[in-house]
């Protein structure tokens, strides 16, 4: 009992010392607390695939009531801004090339005549494919405006609406806003960077400054040193995650559907795994710079292959298997599902056990390496 208490006290003492080392300096204090919140704010606005401003140019060769009605539908949508009215098809190239217009809407001379004769008319759409995802989204918007035009036209001219239509509904994100998807995903991403680095650096710093040897001659056991190094990162990670969560709820007003307890249970598991990896890095690295570089070498693939910006299911099979060892992948899934779907722990088992396994493996490997380096 006494030994247990002693262990606990020693860990707490080390944690306190560690937190002091990190927080004593105003600059490093700021560098821990401000970036996640600022990043969440800026990237929350920036990281969206939704378009609210699409520049287009009209090449209306028909000049008919019908063509004007169609273009009015685009102009009235609030998304499309007509930057030019073209007279000749030869003007199209320069407008697209110079990026002044993302789309060109071309209406042929016979547009209204074809429509009235009932044989159907074509609308030519040219998009700047330099970012094909943006272009695809914009073309989708045009299609839905054309669908509406078709309905209106059919109604006015006594054409029966198509006998089959699709009634679409999106679960968990009724207006299909990418922001709802991105910001909860950032809780894990923005936390990972500093949690992992902080852990990796704290041991490397001691080693570089020679204080690690001093720690070794204290009554601390390797396990206690490790716990003392892990706890402060845990605290910092939890606070950072809380900051991003606050931004998501208070600033972006994305409704939180789940329970905080579930979310934090998942996040703690994730932080444990991230810290385990950080400790492993610090056990391998000889200097601070190496520790930083190795963590960077891991953080980058972790965040690119996490499903934050591009879906994991679109990756090649082999890469999908690789993501199995990526803690961020599970964290993002957990935060999104708890946040948007209100998923409970029972639905998150498939994310939680890999995290637990990762944490167990990395932490025990790190502690093995520590005790072997020390003796």
């Amino acid at each position: 009992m006494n030994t247990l208490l002693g262990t606990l006290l020693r860990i707490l003492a080390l944690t306190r010392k560690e937190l002091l080392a990190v927080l004593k300096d105003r600059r490093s204090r700021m560098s821990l607390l401000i970036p996640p919140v600022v990043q969440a704010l800026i990237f929350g606005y920036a990281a969206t695939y939704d378009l609210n401003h699409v520049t287009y140019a009209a090449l209306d060769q028909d000049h008919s009531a019908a063509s004007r009605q169609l273009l009015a539908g685009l102009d009235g949508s609030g998304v499309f801004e007509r930057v030019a009215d073209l007279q000749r098809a030869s003007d199209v190239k320069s407008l697209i090339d110079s990026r002044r217009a993302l789309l060109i809407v071309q209406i042929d001379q016979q547009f209204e005549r074809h429509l009235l004769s009932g044989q159907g008319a074509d609308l030519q759409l040219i998009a700047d494919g330099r970012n094909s995802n943006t272009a695809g989204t914009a073309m989708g918007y045009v299609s839905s405006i054309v669908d509406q035009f078709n309905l209106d036209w059919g109604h006015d001219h006594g054409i029966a609406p198509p006998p089959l239509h699709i009634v679409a509904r999106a679960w968990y994100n009724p207006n299909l806003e990418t922001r709802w998807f991105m910001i909860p995903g950032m809780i894990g991403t923005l936390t990972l960077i500093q949690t992992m680095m902080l852990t990796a650096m704290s041991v490397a710093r001691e080693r570089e400054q020679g204080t690690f040897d001093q720690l070794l001659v204290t009554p601390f056991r390797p396990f206690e040193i490790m716990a003392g190094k892990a706890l402060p990162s845990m605290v910092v990670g939890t606070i950072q995650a809380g900051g991003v969560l606050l931004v998501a709820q208070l600033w972006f007003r994305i409704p939180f559907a789940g329970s905080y307890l579930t979310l934090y249970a998942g996040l703690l598991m994730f932080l444990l795994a991230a810290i385990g990896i950080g400790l492993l890095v610090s056990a391998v690295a000889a200097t601070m710079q190496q520790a930083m570089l190795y963590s960077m070498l891991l953080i980058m693939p972790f965040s690119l292959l996490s499903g934050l910006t591009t879906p994991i299911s679109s990756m090649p099979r082999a890469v999908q298997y690789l993501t199995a060892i990526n803690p961020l992948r599970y964290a993002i899934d957990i935060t999104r599902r708890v946040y948007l779907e209100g998923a409970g722990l029972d639905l998150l088992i498939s994310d939680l056990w890999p995290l637990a396994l990762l944490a167990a493996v990395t932490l025990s490997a790190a502690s093995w390496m520590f005790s072997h380096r020390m003796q």
Partner: protein
Amino acid sequence: MSLITSTSRSNAWRPKLRRIRALVLKESRQIVRDPSSIAIGVVLPLILILLFGYGLSLDVKNVPIAVVIENPTPEAVELAAGFQLSPYFKPWMTRSMPPAQQNLLEHRIDGIVRIPADLSRHLAAGDADVQLIVHGGDANRARIIEGYVQGVVGAWSARLGAQGQAGLSPPVTVQARLWFNEANDSSYFLVPGLVVLVMTLIGGLLTAMVMAREWERGTLESLFVTPVRTEEILLGKTLPYFALALFGFVLCVLSAKFLFHVPLRGSMGVLFGASMLYVLIALGIGLLISSWVKNQLVASQLTMLVTFMPAFMLSGFLFDLRSMPTVVRMITYALPARYYVALLQSVFLAGDVWSVIVPNTLALAAMAAALALGSRAMRKVLA
């Protein structure tokens, strides 16, 4: 008289060059010997190239969906078959809604297409509905899936129309063409974006960290007391990293062309010139940050924050700049990555479009000039 000054000037030049050469040599050796520099200058770019080329994709294929056929009439079965034939879907046929909903809840499928029991009767009456529920979590993907479902159902209606049921083809049909990327392959815009990230990484991050380490260890101060002048130190320190960035650039362009088959439609000269300008700026930012904070950890995080993350999120290579709110868009104007991305996307995919090249290059040149002035100020502080 003039002869004497010119020889004395050339005399002043020669030791200067010699000193710079010695520094470059020393720094290059240090890079080659330090595994961590190799890691960030060579290994990390390679990892990024492989990840971007093979790992990342926004193309949606083989979407797992459930098709609920409540009543297997010939029409319903034929409609469902359309999903089986589509390369975009991996449908799972079922007869009732609850198991499909459970699968959607557990996110094993991305959507449910429900073909109601009374489809045939409503088709005859002309008011049939097909219900679609998509998992809206990933809104971008959900929207693409909606479009694909629309396509399958539309194709089926058109076939019905061809069989003699009139009025099924819509009045206006959209004929869309995607310029510069006809096959709609997302690696066409991801790979040029990769070049930006690699250049940022080598130029900014590596320089900031190396210089901050020198500050931390005090080795820079001991350099100052040698006859080497400040600008010679700066030049000697940055030239090797410039060369490393060049190497990364060649690596990226080669892999873009031969590994990922992204077309390079513009001229190599423009691409090279713009990239060198960008690397210069990234180097300058790295230098400024490191001499300001003089601490590896803070320098690296600050550099990540002001160069790498913005190059990823705010440069327009992934997310559309025009749709960002004004304040955020204003921030992007201050970021060199924004101009570099515009240049890269055009030079790779569209060709030498001077209306894009000229303004963006000018913006980059202005930033480089501003940084050069800034480093002048820094020199005064040091001296």
